[in-house]
């Protein structure tokens, strides 16, 4: 398995106290190589929390996260950062492009912490290819403020892929897009999932996007259940 969540529980506050809030209750999930998974559920059900835990951006209250057959609790903050840098790509609801950097610079931003020169050069070639692939070649030297939201979100996807991650996590990637752009982006993610040989986990409200994925789960009341549609 590429990634695995075992009995993940996440709560806020103290057990038994008034402020206690259980978000994830003994959730387990496995992500295989090249797999595409959609997680749906009502607002506030803990979908993003689940994704953040899978992406090592958040810690579970209990349970185990295994990435590439290694438990992430063995790593410190810097180790986790290195894992994210090499292994995981993120796409958020908002594109989160830095307004001071050009599109290309934004895309190459994940390479800043990478020291391996060969890898950096490879990434640049890859970035150019991906920009071409998503139809932004003519915009690579523009600042994000000059582009549409859809274009920015596509660039954010490229940025997530530039380090050649094996796992792409997308948190409501179409949340801020109109229907046409959302459909395009969903399609793009799925295509890249196949073309780039990476696993894709998408948290979404959109049944259309979810329907594009191989597996679908629904998170409700802290429990994750597979769904057919």
């Amino acid at each position, binding site marked *: 398995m590429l990634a695995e969540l075992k009995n993940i529980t996440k709560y806020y506050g103290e057990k038994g106290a008034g402020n206690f809030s259980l978000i994830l209750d003994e959730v387990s999930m496995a992500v295989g190589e090249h797999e595409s998974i959609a997680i749906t559920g009502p607002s506030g059900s803990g979908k993003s929390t689940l994704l953040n835990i899978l992406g090592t951006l958040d810690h579970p209250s209990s349970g185990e996260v295994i990435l590439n057959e290694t438990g992430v609790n063995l790593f410190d903050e*810097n180790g986790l950062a290195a894992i994210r840098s090499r292994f995981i790509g993120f796409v958020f609801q908002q594109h989160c492009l*830095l*307004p001071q950097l050009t599109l290309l610079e934004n895309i190459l931003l*994940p390479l800043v912490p990478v020291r391996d020169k060969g890898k950096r050069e490879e990434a640049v070639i890859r970035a150019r290819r991906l920009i071409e692939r998503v139809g932004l070649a003519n915009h690579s030297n523009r*600042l994000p*403020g000059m582009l549409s939201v859809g274009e920015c979100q596509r660039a954010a996807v490229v940025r997530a892929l530039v380090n050649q991650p094996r796992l792409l996590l997308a948190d409501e990637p179409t949340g801020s897009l109109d229907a046409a752009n959302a459909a395009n982006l969903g399609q793009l993610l799925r295509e890249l999932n196949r073309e780039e040989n990476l696993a894709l986990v998408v948290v979404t409200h959109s049944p259309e996007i979810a329907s594009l994925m191989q597996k679908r789960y629904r998170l409700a009341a802290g429990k994750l259940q597979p769904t057919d549609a």
Partner: protein
Amino acid sequence: MMNLSRLIRRNLWFYRKPYLSVMFGVMTTTAVLTGALIVGDSVRFSLQKIAHDRLGGIRYAVPPGERFFRQELARGISGITKQAVAPAVQCGAMAINSSRNLRINQVVVTGIDQRFCDFWDHPFRNPGEEEAIISRNVAEKLGLKKGDDLLLRIQKQGGAPPDAPFAMDKKASVSLRVRVTAIAGDEGMGRFSLKSNQAAPYNIFVSLAQMSLALGLPGFANMILTGGDDTPATGPANPDGALRHCWQPEDAGIHFTRLPSLPDEAIPHERAGGTRMEVTTSRIFFDDNTAEALQSVVPGCEPVLTWMVNSISCGNHATPYSFVTGVSDSFLGRKIQPREIIVNNWLAKDLALHPGDSVGLRYFLMGPMRSLREDSTRFVVGAIVPDRNSLADRGLMPAFPGMSDAGNCRDWETGAPIDLKKIRDKDEQYWKEYRGTPKAFIRLETGQRIWNNRFGRFTAFRFVAVESQIKQIRNKVMSELSPVQSGLTFRDVFREGRRAAGNGSDFGQLFLSLSFFIILSALLLTVLLFSLSAMSRLGEAGILSAAGFRRRTIILVMIAEALVVAIAGAVPGAGFGILFNRLLILGLNTLWIDAVGTSMVVMHVEPVSLVIGALVGIVLSVSAMAVVLRSGLRNPLSELVKGKTSGTGPAVSKRFQHLSAAAGIVFPAISVIMVTVLLVTRQTMNVPLYLLAGAMALAGGLFLANFVLSRTVMTKAHLIPRFRGLVIRNMAQNRRQTMAVLTLLALGTFSVIITGANRKTYHGAGPDRSSGTGGFLFWAETLLPIRYDLNSSPGIKAYSLGDEALLKPLHYVHLTRRDGDDASCLNLNQVSQPALLGVPQHYFDRVGAFSFTSLHPTANHEHPWKSLEKELAPGVIPGFADQTVITWGLGRKNGDTLFYRAESGKTLKIRLVGGLENSIFQGNILVSDSLLRLFYPSAGGSQVMLIEVPSASGDTIARRLEVLFRDEGMMVTSAAARLEAFDAVENTYLSVFMMLGALGMIIGTIGFGILILRSIRRRKQEFALYRALGFTKNYIFRLIVAEHVLMLIAAMLLGMVSALAGILPSLVTPGAVVPWLFMSGLILLMTVNGMLWIFIPAGAALKNALMPGLRGE
């Protein structure tokens, strides 16, 4: 019901927390503004109070001078003006408490009676004989209390001018032993002074009768004081009119004496039946005004000029020490030729003279400082007259003190050396029989030519008048004369004092300038705090717009909120201004006492200052907040709804870029050119221009930074961003904030360094001729004038300097002082007649002493000192002063004229032709010594000396000189220390500025910290993204720190480099030492402070969860 005011109220309440912090900013701005204004009120009020304390009920005064007049004059004036009038005698003195071996070399002793005491609200009992009332500062300095004894050595004044030919030079002082009966505080008469100065004089009051008796002038006074109300006295109440009405010849030092009658046959026919009268003056020589009045009023008035000659010789025979009189033809009743001499029988016999013989007259001519030059003239004997004749009598010899009352020739005490060996028995015999009867007569004009001197051209006038007309003649002469010509004129000291205090240094304005940086910082802080809340609320503007609000209404709502917050901050701010002022006043009375020279500054709050402070605070704050709103609401409201605050990012227009680039190049270039020109033209003291050059460099640097940042944003096509690139990009992205921080910190650094480096010290400045010390090691002042040139043999002999090996290499430069107001920065009052100092311009020119900041076009630019040597027009002489005195002390410029009253009563105009760099002369107007003596013949001796020492052995020499000239009350100060004392004022202002600047820096760095926090808060999403992309926390921390450290360093470097131009005057002023260590410490402190404000928020920010930032909520 929802309406605008309700919306505003709800907004204010909901955002009360951020608004409270904005209120804090407004409060600080207002408190500083109001505090500064109240300092102005307080200093003005304190100066007015001091003026009241030093004058009591005195309204007009004839200030103390060398000339004495009858005390009775006061009664006469009082009778006419119906005001209280008090005569007094005032002289400089030394006060010695022998029991504790303590002394003060310069006290003011005033002889008073009860009339003087009554001028004060709580009058003391008039001091009786051998009693004294002393001011509190004298009591403190000499450790005296009631009942203690005190010795006074009082400078003797009155009578003949001290430098007048043949005037006696003994007994320059008189001693009085008194017992302290009371100690007068500031509100008593302890501060009494006619001079507009906030520094308290050392006052001692003794009995008027005893003091005038001790000076040998019983019944005389040299000062009159009158009471009155606040309105200018006119008509009979005008004291000058009353003075003119009742003054007598004695008040002008003129004496009408009846001469013994002559046998009838000796009297020319036309004068028969009259009384022979002689008019003499207690000043020996008549001034021109009196001489002209006598000659015009008295018909047949005969002027005479008698001189003592050292010898009258013919061949090998010589008669020593005789009096020769210059007379007119009518006096002798025959025509007398220019080279003719009429001798008496005694002389003819002594020298075996016959008509037609040639005789030689040798006589002394006296220059300044009793320098003597022996000159001679040859005459031809025209006639021989009997020893006792109708013309020659002993009365023709002026009443030379020390001579006319001597029993025999060997007892003569004159100002000229007498070789007693030359005096023969027959000379003694002549003296006994005829006293000073002239042995010869020459033509008056010849006498006036060969004995030309600055004191006068006549020693007596004689006339014959009918007895009944004598009184009429006296009155007529007095009506021809004006009391002004004898220095008798009332000054409206009350109004002068009020004006001087009112026009003095405006501390309100000064503290406003000194608080400039702190006000700016507080204002920027307000803006930052406001923008923190305003920017986060811009989305609301969009919502309001969607709800149908017009843009104007939206702005109105936000401005209204800002106004309420500003008012809520400004009102308590004005109150806190009083507290801030209390601190400043405390500082002025203690730490910064050098700036005001008195600890008497009391807080005084004018309500209008509070209102102005609050209003200005509100206007400034609201304007600043309006700028923030305007900038925030510039985008379309539709964008604001989406939360966008900057359409296409931080890109700036090409035009703005070009403007920034141009200003970034042109401003520093102008700065460099200015500094080069200033240095080449040696304008090292033109501090404002250097500061302007510094400010230009700073502004240029900021524009350049703006250009670089705006260009960085627009630069494209970079590949993988590097750490450095990210840092610069981030700074550029937040260009406005970056520029705000750069401006704030650069300005702070600039201010602190400028003030720190411009603090002046002059250790080791002594030997440099072009420095403010002129290369002189010591500045010496004496209470009693030094009569002789201490470099000359008579001087060395008179003061026994020949025995002192230590003092042999010393060279003394004597200066003549004419008392006046202190125009130095030590006096807060604005004065109009500063003290005059007569300087040897040729010597200064020869040695190249001192430096000039400015010269009038008419001055001699090659040899500036030579500009002083000649009168510019009759009654107009050139003068120099320190540039600071010209500009600040007097509020004048080169080419302006100062008006004085010469001793003759005529107006003396001094045209300012040059400004010196800061020098030891600060507070004085420098004129040519010879011209000063010409207009003030009574100025005798020297009370100020500059001393050159080839090899400095400092203190030993100074102490030895003080011991040697103890009786003259000498005080020797190192010239560098004197310069430092003047600079202490400037340094104190700089300290205040620096302290307020430092306070501003603290506020500035708080603003800096807030900016960092704000930036981190705003960029939370960005940092979360970094984390998601695999950046370590440490990397992000370094990124934040690097951005801000770069800002800090760039700002400090910019501030320091720009400040270099501003501190150049200090770097190039000879002898001035820049306190590098102090400065380095200051910079280090500022750096550490800045770093703290970077590291703490950056560290704290990363401790919080970043990830929610990615949800865009």
